[in-house]
């Protein structure tokens, strides 16, 4: 009787075991289609201030406490960041992101991903980090993106602008 119960327990545990074993790996998750590559934009950048610094007059300085008499009055708010991505002549992303912080004086950031067909692509990235005027950063490249490959577009102002990295 005891042996029968143990056998019955084994038979009942078997489907539980199979259930856990199977669903811990199956069905496989499709990350990207076999004929596609991925373009990612990931950037963080503190844009220029929205207003130019202004030189305080002597009268204005005299009104301020001695320890706060800075010659320049610089409003903290930064301009929004406008980013545009063009692939093979078509604009696939055009986004304006606000600076972080209650006073809008922090860095603006953007993360965006776009699957594209694997193959050769002409990619243009543009960025404007000032209140007015045309895009002031631009990078263009023609790249071969392998199936499953990823292109990472970063922005490093210290290195002169956009940075394209791919496998």
């Amino acid at each position: 009787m005891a042996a029968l119960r143990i056998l019955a327990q084994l038979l009942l545990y078997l489907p539980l075991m199979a259930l856990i074993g199977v669903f811990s790996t199956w069905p496989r998750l499709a990350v990207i289609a076999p004929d596609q590559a991925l373009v990612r934009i990931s950037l963080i950048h503190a844009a220029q201030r929205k207003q130019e610094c202004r030189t305080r007059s002597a009268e204005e300085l005299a009104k301020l406490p001695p320890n706060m008499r800075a010659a320049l009055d610089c409003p903290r708010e930064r301009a929004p960041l406008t980013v545009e991505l063009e692939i093979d002549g078509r604009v696939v992303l055009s986004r304006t992101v606000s600076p972080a912080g209650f006073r809008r004086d922090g860095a603006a950031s953007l993360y965006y991903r776009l699957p594209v067909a694997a193959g050769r692509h002409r990619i243009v990235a543009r960025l404007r980090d000032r209140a007015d005027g045309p895009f002031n950063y631009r990078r263009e490249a023609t790249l071969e993106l392998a199936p499953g490959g990823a292109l990472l577009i970063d922005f490093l102002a210290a290195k002169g602008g956009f940075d394209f990295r791919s496998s």
Partner: protein
Amino acid sequence: MAAANAIDGAFVAAERGLDAAFGARANPLRNLGTLAFFLFWVLAATGIYLFITFDTSVEGAYASIEALTTKQWWLGGVVRSVHRYAADAFVAATLLHLVREWAAGRYRRFRAFSWISGVPLLWLMYASGIVGYWLVWDARAQISALATAQWLDATGLTAEPMARNFVGAESVGDRLFSLFAFLHIGLPLALLGGMWIHVQRIGQPRTVAPRALASAALAMLLVAALLHPATSQAPWDPLQLPATIELDWFLLFMHPLMEATSPAVLWALTGGATLLLVALPALLPGPKPVAAVVDPANCNGCARCTVDCPYQAVLLVPAPGVRTGRQVEVIADRCAACGLCAGACPSSTPFRSTETLAAGIDMPDADVQRQRVKLEAALARIAQATAGRIIVFACAEAANAAALEDARTALLDMRCIGMLPPSFIEYALRAGADGALLVACREGECRYRIGAELTAQRLAGERQPILRKSVPRERLRMVALAAGEEDDLVAARDALRRALDALGPAPRLRPKRDASAERTARGHA
């Protein structure tokens, strides 16, 4: 509610079906919470070994786990696989436990604390498991970490996108791995703390799995580990994506769900589900039970009721005006009105010589005085018979005992068999019954968790108040039968009657009410 009833019915059917093979004590469906506790300890034990061998660096993490899986497959590989499958089984047991408790209505009133305190555990469980997958630092970790970061970034609370940490090789450093390891230890520790809180309003919680259940669960994990070892995906490479990955659907199902919808939708689903679960006890409170009351004049502070209360509703507090005395206090919101405290009270005995009985703790609508009056009326009804007279003490939630009543069988029903002070059995046998039949809920189905268990221990002399040794056990039967098993109940009554017929009438031992019982009730216990 119809859905809850249907699911509850399905659970009950499955539990009873599995009882045949496992027995109620080792039945995994009847012990889902206990099983989750056991799996947590399996995770902790296997996790310690994995952490000892784990290299917490970007360069070494993947390689150290690969070495463990391939070069030491017979130990490290098995431990890794058991860790993986125990985590999945933990999720499955926890979610089933949640559904089971909801379907049975065990989330409201005196159960609300356990229910609500269980909700954060779901978040901690998933957070612990998801971070665990990142430690492997393979393509699956990459997908999971990035998806989680995107989800958190969607709150707008992150100073800069967390996703940036996982898109380029230069942004991932050894310190990030130290953070992962810290989280994978800290979160489970928080989970354990939460599990401890979760059972605080449960009297005698079953947090240790019976040996049979623990052995079977461990064997199942080992077999799964040997047949289907856990493996890593391709190494993490931010510039190369795999077409597909193996996904653990128990723990990581939220990533494809977010991919198919959006981070905002996933927040709405998880946040909405959390709020709904937390609000459920208030939304569907159900009827308020009539709580037990304490009579300080009859309470000697013995604390049996505090120990036996299944929901920690009875506390021991200093007696007012007495320097060293103690008395019990009932927290009405926690009281299930099961009467187990009354069954445990030494002053709850019908032998006391006072004309109007009053116990130290009792149920206002079913007190010991009413119970004695009902018992005496029941005994009077069968007094004309000459032999085979049976008094049936029946739980209202168990098999319906009303059909047993006849010229030689009288019924005293109660809301839980644990409400029955054993002295009532002795009283009945002295005052006209030849035998007593106790009807409890089917094993594992006590509405108040431990009523049948406490009664069995009291009858066996293992728990106070005991049924005295002088009470003839051959005149006593206890059966555990659920509604729908009335035929078995009739058979049990008939079997007892045959035994009683063979034994003859019970001897009348002493006068019904005894002054010594009064002294015992007031001072001894």
